[in-house]
């Protein structure tokens, strides 16, 4: 392979990206070296198994990916604002919507939510870490390496361009030659390992590590939503793993699972993809529902209305999410019995979802509602998500879907559910739990600015798309004709896109601003909240709880406050040494080998793929001979830390 095939050449945008990547890498290396921070980076972050730190790294990566996906989005809007623009050609446009979609779902939405799960779930159930802290680090690093593998495609080798759904035969070797599509397959494969491990890890954590007295029906709603999400992950991700592996075999080793000839079945790819893909959309919405439940209940100053109905509706959603997948390809030509069956199951999902919406409304009913940025994101979710859900039911009617399918109507639908559902939840959760991690709030004025800009921008951007769909504009086209009549609505949409971009920039600036100027907290409970994560001091000591709390019902922390009980009395309570897991460098090294192996396979350099795989096996063997005994935090040290974070004298 020649060098100019290895690096992507010829496009000024790409050269710009090359330069900025190199400059920022030099910048990072320079800063780390100048301030002698390499050791700190390795000891405190790269080898950590602490769920809070892993959570922070997940969220940081997700924000970075939101930026990358957002730039992709703005490029697309720039191209579509006016008819017959020649800013991006069709190939480039295809690559951009492919990376946009894949990054937003796999490398932004899921890691953001998993990051929040990492931070919050152990604290909510009164645990000192997750069940398998080492595995948790493996999860993060495989996700991170998968994301990096996918992200370098646009400067090295070329991006995939067959859509985030990567339907064959388009994604096959004949129509998508070269490394691009392989990046998609291997990036997702590597990251998928991490997601599956997270699913197992958090399910075990929630089932086995709850504080004494916390029965299942006393768990906070976010923990419930995480548990159910984990179950969906455990059952759905293996399907993706297999489908990706089969397509990888097709592309690299010449098998014929999905090819047009020699007995391959191209439609089987679509079938397998959506067998994973539909559960996947519920993987990114259920934790969001959990976040909204927490935030709405806290700031309505009431307990959650219909707790049991909330739990059961999620269980039903989880089961139904596995029996609706065909609604993504009603138009592929199945017969009427198949289409009607999946039409009905799809519509059925909206029932438990509707139950949840009413429960949130009743939670607020007669509550003393406190409006702040976290609550604003949750409030805005309800009406916007309802629009997305209602249009979903319109799409669910198979006959009608022949009209809507693959038009901008569909694009509007899934952005309404994913942005006002998942993204609003991520922001709401970020504002809500941020003080727990960093001991200060995010600034409210900037927060409200970014909220209003983003929320209004979102509607300005995506509401017109419903009408573009009615007017017949197909999705995934890189331009349209003068006389099509689509110009005005597209121009409006682009204005909304820019507003969302500004809203995002303000949100990021707010983090910087708040680090510098927001007053430090003097309490671990800045919102007067209800669940156990707020019983800990802020910032949370690395062992979370000096004394594991005893749970007597729902909203335990609220009850403790009502009774005037403190979670920890340093003078009276007897402390015991705490057993904690050791940090380990194996996860990051193992994942680096996975990256190398994946990179080799992308370019079909089998020697490199094998070499990386050998590295992975060696690190696994190293790990299995590591006794990993952990260490004890002595009572003296716990006392010292608690006095310090609680600012009291013992």
């Amino acid at each position, binding site marked *: 392979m020649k060098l100019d095939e290895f690096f992507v050449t010829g496009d000024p945008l790409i050269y710009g990206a090359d330069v900025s990547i190199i400059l920022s890498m030099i910048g990072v290396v320079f800063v780390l070296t100048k301030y002698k921070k390499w050791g700190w980076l390795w000891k405190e972050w790269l080898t950590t198994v602490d769920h809070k730190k892993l959570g922070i790294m997940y969220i940081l990566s997700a924000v970075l990916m939101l930026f990358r996906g957002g730039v992709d989005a703005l490029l697309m809007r720039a191209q579509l604002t006016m008819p017959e623009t020649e800013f991006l050609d069709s190939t480039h446009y295809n690559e951009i919507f492919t990376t946009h979609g894949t990054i937003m779902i796999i490398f932004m939405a899921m890691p953001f939510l998993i990051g929040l799960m990492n931070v919050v779930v152990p604290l909510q159930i009164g645990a000192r870490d997750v069940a398998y802290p080492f595995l948790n680090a493996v999860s993060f690093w495989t996700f991170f390496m998968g994301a990096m593998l996918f992200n370098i495609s646009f400067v090295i080798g070329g991006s995939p361009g067959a859509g985030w759904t990567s339907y064959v035969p388009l994604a096959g070797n004949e129509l998508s030659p070269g490394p691009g599509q392989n990046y998609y397959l291997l990036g997702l494969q590597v990251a998928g390992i991490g997601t599956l491990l997270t699913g197992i890890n958090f399910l075990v954590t929630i089932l086995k590590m709850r504080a004494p007295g916390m029965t299942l029906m006393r768990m906070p709603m976010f923990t419930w939503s995480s548990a159910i999400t984990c179950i969906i992950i455990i059952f759905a991700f293996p399907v993706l793993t297999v489908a990706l592996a089969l397509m990888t075999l097709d592309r690299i080793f010449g098998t014929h699972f999905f090819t047009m000839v020699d007995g391959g*079945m191209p439609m*089987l790819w679509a*079938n397998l993809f959506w067998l994973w893909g539909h559960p996947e959309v519920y993987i990114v919405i259920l934790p969001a529902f959990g976040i909204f439940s927490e935030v709405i209940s806290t700031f309505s100053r009431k307990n959650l209305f219909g707790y049991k109905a909330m739990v059961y509706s999620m269980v039903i959603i989880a089961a139904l999410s596995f029996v609706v997948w065909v609604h993504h390809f009603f138009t592929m030509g199945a*017969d009427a019995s198949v289409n009607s069956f999946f039409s009905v199951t799809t519509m059925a999902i909206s029932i438990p979802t509707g139950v949840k919406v009413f429960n949130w409304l009743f939670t607020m009913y007669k509550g003393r509602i406190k409006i702040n940025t976290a609550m604003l994101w949750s409030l805005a979710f309800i009406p916007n998500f309802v629009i997305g859900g209602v249009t979903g039911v319109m799409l669910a009617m198979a006959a009608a879907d022949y009209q809507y399918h693959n038009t901008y109507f569909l694009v509007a639908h899934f952005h309404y559910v994913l942005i006002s559902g998942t993204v609003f939840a991520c922001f709401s959760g970020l504002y809500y739990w941020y003080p727990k991690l960093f001991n200060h709030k995010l600034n409210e004025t900037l927060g409200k600015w970014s909220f209003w800009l983003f929320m209004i921008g979102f509607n300005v951007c995506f509401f017109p798309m419903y009408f573009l769909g009615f007017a017949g504009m197909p999705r995934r086209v890189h331009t349209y004709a003068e006389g099509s009549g689509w110009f005005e609505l597209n121009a409006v949409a682009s204005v909304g896109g820019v507003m969302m971009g500004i809203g995002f920039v303000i949100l990021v600036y707010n983090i910087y601003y708040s680090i510098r100027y927001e007053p430090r907290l003097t309490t671990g409970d800045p919102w007067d909240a209800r669940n156990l994560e707020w019983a800990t001091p802020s910032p949370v000591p690395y062992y979370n709880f000096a004394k594991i709390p005893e749970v007597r019902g729902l909203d335990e922390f609220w009850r403790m406050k009502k009774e005037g009980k403190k979670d920890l009395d340093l003078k009276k309570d007897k402390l015991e040494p705490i057993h904690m897991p050791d940090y380990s460098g194996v996860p990051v090294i193992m994942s680096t080998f996975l990256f190398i192996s994946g990179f080799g396979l992308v370019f079909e350099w089998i020697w490199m793929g094998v070499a990386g795989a050998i590295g992975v096996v060696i690190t696994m063997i190293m790990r299995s001979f590591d006794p990993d005994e952990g260490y004890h935090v002595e009572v003296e040290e716990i006392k010292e830390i608690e006095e310090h974070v609680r600012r009291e004298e013992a």
Partner: protein
Amino acid sequence: MAGNNHNKFPWNHVLGFIFSIVLTLLAVWAALYSSLSITAIVWTIVTLALLQAAVQLFMFMHIGEGEGKAQKGTIYFSAFIAVVIVAGSIWVMNAMMHSMM
């Protein structure tokens, strides 16, 4: 961590490992190198796949060491999902193939 008899040699796991490799190789042989008819090949590899699943469930996943209700629930749910994925795919793909003709 101390725990479930770590000092005994893990025969179960080693045997399971060997079984799963042998079953896989048998399937490869049946599909690529045997002179069986297509129908026979399909039945052979489906049978091998079921055996493979049994090996995994009994030798690695300790299906016998349950904890009552929760254990039963998860097994039923897994069976439900497995049926949905396999039978569902066959049903849907068949419907597609027929209307394509």
